C-alpha cells in the first residue's frame, strides 16, 4: 500500500472518532482485542487490524471486507482494552458509515437482517420474530433455513403470529423522520 497524505483519509477517521466518541490514535496495537474476540476467526481483518487500518486512513479496505459485519457487539474488546479504546463503538461507527455508503461490503445477510429489524420497529413498534425470520428467509433466498425449528416453536407458543397495536406508533415514526431531517440538514452524522 502506498501511504501519503493523499491516501490517508483523515476526515473519515475523524468522522469515526466523532461517532464512536473514542480515539483511534490511542491504540498501540497490543492485540488484546483480537485475542479475546469470539468472532476474530470469521474476520479477514482481526479487530486490531481494523483499528490499524483506521490509523493509516485506509477505510476502504475495512468497508470492502466483512469484518465489521461479523462483530457480535459483545463488548469484550472494549472491556479489556488496556488503553480505553472503545472498539465496539468504533465498529458501530464503521457499520453506520458503511450503511450510509449503501454497503460496499460483501456481507449482505447481516445487513439485510439489520435492515428488516429496523423496518419492523418503524412499522410495528416491536419485534415479531416469526415475521422477521420469514421475511429474512424470503429475501435472502434461504427458504428452508431453520425450517425444522418453526413448527416446534409455534407449538411451544414461542412465535407470535399476530401483533398488538401500539399507541406510540406515530411517535416512533416521528423519531425516524426527525432523525432523517437532521441528517439532511447536516445537523447529525
Amino acid at each position, binding site marked *: 500500500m502506498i501511504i501519503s497524505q493523499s491516501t490517508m483519509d483523515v476526515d473519515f477517521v475523524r468522522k469515526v472518532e466523532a461517532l464512536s*466518541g473514542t480515539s483511534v490514535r490511542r491504540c498501540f496495537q497490543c492485540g488484546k482485542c483480537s485475542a479475546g474476540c*469470539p*468472532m476474530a476467526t*470469521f474476520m479477514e481483518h482481526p479487530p486490531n487490524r481494523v483499528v490499524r487500518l483506521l490509523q493509516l486512513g485506509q477505510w476502504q479496505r475495512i468497508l470492502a471486507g466483512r469484518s465489521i459485519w*461479523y462483530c*457480535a*457487539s*459483545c*463488548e*469484550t474488546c*472494549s*472491556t479489556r482494552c488496556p488503553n480505553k479504546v*472503545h472498539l*465496539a*463503538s468504533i465498529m*458501530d*461507527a464503521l*457499520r*453506520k458509515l458503511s*450503511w450510509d455508503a449503501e454497503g460496499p461490503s460483501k456481507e449482505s*445477510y*447481516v*445487513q*439485510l437482517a*439489520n435492515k428488516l*429489524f*429496523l423496518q*419492523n*420497529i418503524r412499522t410495528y*413498534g*416491536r*419485534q415479531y*420474530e*416469526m415475521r*422477521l425470520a420469514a421475511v*429474512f428467509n424470503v429475501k*435472502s433466498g434461504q427458504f428452508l*433455513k*431453520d425450517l*425444522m*425449528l418453526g413448527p*416446534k*416453536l409455534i407449538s*411451544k*407458543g*414461542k*412465535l*407470535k403470529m399476530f401483533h398488538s397495536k*401500539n*399507541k*406510540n406508533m406515530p*411517535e*416512533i415514526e*416521528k*423519531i425516524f423522520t*426527525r*432523525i432523517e431531517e*437532521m441528517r439532511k440538514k447536516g*445537523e*447529525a452524522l
Partner: protein
Amino acid sequence: MKDKLNYSYYPGCSLHASAGEYDLSTRELFKRLSIGLTEVPDWFCCGATPAHNVDELLSLSLCAKNLELAEQVEGDLAVACAACFSRLKTTQHVLAESDVKRKQVEKAIDAPLKLDGKVKHLLEILARDLGLERLAASVTKPLAGLKVACYYGCLLTRPNDVPNLDCVEAPTIMEDVLKAVGAETVAWSHRMECCGANFTLSRPGVVIQLTNAILESAKEAGADCVMVACPLCHGNLDIRQKEIEGVYNVNYGLPVFYITQLVGLACGLSSDKLGLGALIVNPMPLLKEKQLL
C-alpha cells in the same frame, strides 16, 4: 422490613414473543415475592443490537423515548432482557457523557431527556433491592443438589463503567442468587463468552459454533443445567441445542432455565406458572430426578 418494592417494568420484545415463559415467570415470581411490577404502557422496541450496529443516534433516541415513557410509572425501571438492559444503560451513559449526542437525541425525540431514573436488571432487584436474606427467607423448596452453570453472556456486565451490575470480568451475582435459593453452582470457563446472538438470523452457522463451545464447557464442568438472564442467550442455548447436538454429534441434554424460573421453583411456584413447558430441552426429567417437582 422495608416498604413494599415497586417497579415499572420493561419486558422487551422477546418476552412478548419467543421468551413468553421468561415474562410469565417474572410476573409470577414478583407476585410471590410481593414486589410490585407495572408494565410501561405502550413501550416499544429499544432497537437492540441492530439499531446501534448501524445507527447509534436511532438507538439512543429509541431508548431515550422508552426511558421517558417509563417515567409515567412509579418506581425504578425493571428490565428482564440483558440486551434491553444494556441498551438502556448505555443510552444513559453515552448521553450523560456527550453534549453533542444529547442535543441530537433531544431533538429527535422532541421531549425532555429523563436520564436520572434508575434502570435495574431483575438480578439486581433480587440480589440487592430485595436482598439475598429476604430472598432466602421466601424459599420453600430449596434447589438442593441441582448443579447449575450460571451463564452471564456478554451484555449483563460489559463494558466497564456502564451496566455496573457487578465486576465486569468476575461477577458473582447469579451465583449469589442461586446459592440463596439452595442450588449448587459450578465453576466453568465459558460463563462470559459470547453466544453470537446477533447472528441468530443471518449467520446461524456462527451461532452454532460459539454456542457449542459454551454448552461443552458447561457439561465438562459437571453442570446439570444452565441458567440465563437473557432471552437471546436462551434462544441459542435452548432452542438451538438439538441442532448443535446434531451438527457436532454430541449429547448435552442441558435444560436451560431463566433465572426467574429457578428462583420461582425454589419459592414454590408450579411448573405452569413458570412456563417450564415452553422450554425446548425438556427439564422435567432432571427436575424429577432431583425431586424438585
